[in-house]
């Protein structure tokens, strides 16, 4: 190989750079503890499933409720819930800052659900407008 003495260290340097974050975080345990509702034991789905795919679930809910008019969700245990972010999810998780935001802030995502959806079903006035950046930048 021509110029191997430049190319190989170059590749090694590049790989080192690319994997630096992985190496840096090795051994660190990733842990976020959102505050769970004290008076409720069951969520609509098991905790692990909610952790992994609440976003898919919410996306399905919104399509089924708005587009198909199908507004009742039945889980594996046969329990029925209304497909509603504010009226169902936020009825139990009444403090967005201590539940949603803890994870979202840690992993650096800013979902724009709250540009329209209310924080709880007994909120007194609309949430004030959020700054552009905080609202997902659009």
């Amino acid at each position, binding site marked *: 190989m021509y110029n191997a003495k430049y190319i190989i260290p170059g590749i090694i340097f590049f790989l080192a750079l690319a994997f630096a974050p992985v190496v840096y975080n090795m051994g660190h345990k990733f842990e976020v503890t959102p505050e769970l509702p004290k008076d409720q034991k069951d969520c609509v789905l098991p905790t692990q499933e909610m952790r992994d795919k609440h976003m898919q679930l919410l996306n399905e809910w919104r399509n089924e409720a708005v587009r198909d008019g199908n507004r009742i969700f039945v889980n594996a245990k046969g329990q029925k819930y209304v497909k509603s972010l504010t009226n169902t999810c936020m009825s139990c998780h009444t403090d967005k800052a201590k539940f949603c935001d803890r994870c979202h802030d840690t992993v650096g995502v800013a979902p724009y659900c709250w540009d329209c959806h209310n924080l709880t079903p007994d909120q007194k*006035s609309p949430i004030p407008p959020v700054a552009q950046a905080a609202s997902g930048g659009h």
Partner: protein
Amino acid sequence: MKSNRREFLKLAAVSAMGIGAARLGFLGDAPAFAESVPTAANFEEGLKAKHWGMAIFTAKMTPEMNAKCRKACHTEHNVPDIAGPKEIKWFWGANFEESFPTEHGHYLSEEIEHRQFPLLCNQCETPMCVKVCPTQATFQRPDGIVMMDFHRCIGCRYCMAGCPYGARSFNFQDPRPFIKSFNPLFPTRMRGVVEKCNFCAERLAIGKLPVCVEAAEGALVFGDLSDEQSDIRKALREHFAIRRKPDAGTSPSVYYIL
């Protein structure tokens, strides 16, 4: 001390009613909106129809009644109160000339000329707004309701150009600071999204009639246009009714009884 009293009240209420404490948040702070959160059982009682429509006894729709219906609708749906050209309207009123420009009603009777006609989205049978929407944010349900999926609206405003009735409004700014009477159970909209009357799809789903119909004390009749026995068909059988701009070809589901 305060929280102790609150806990006690909660406990007392739980033992009295034998239901979970989860829904008893209202004991501490009364909601701004008196309505309670609909449950899955409510949603099982949804109203169904082949084709929803509305008939309007226009003589009964005085300007006061119009204002009352508008207020009921706008409160229910968190419609912001913005004056001027950026106004957002789901339910509004206009005179005969504006409402029925293709009727060319010269020499109208005084009473008709001064009557205020309630206007809302006509929930057209062949809606132009649906045809022109590039993202299918506006779509038609099998029961005739022309719905908006606000999640999908990209704010291109084709539907506003397409609608021959001016039934749609655009949020030029964040609507939240302009919401005077707030309903926490219904979302707001955001800047850059179009909105309009949805025939109260969220209320039909829990077995309730549209809130303007409830407020109108019989002046608005809501029902299934494809059911001959329905109240709306009876009203249309017995009275002469016209629709707005028939030559636009969209075939409105809202009928005006003169």
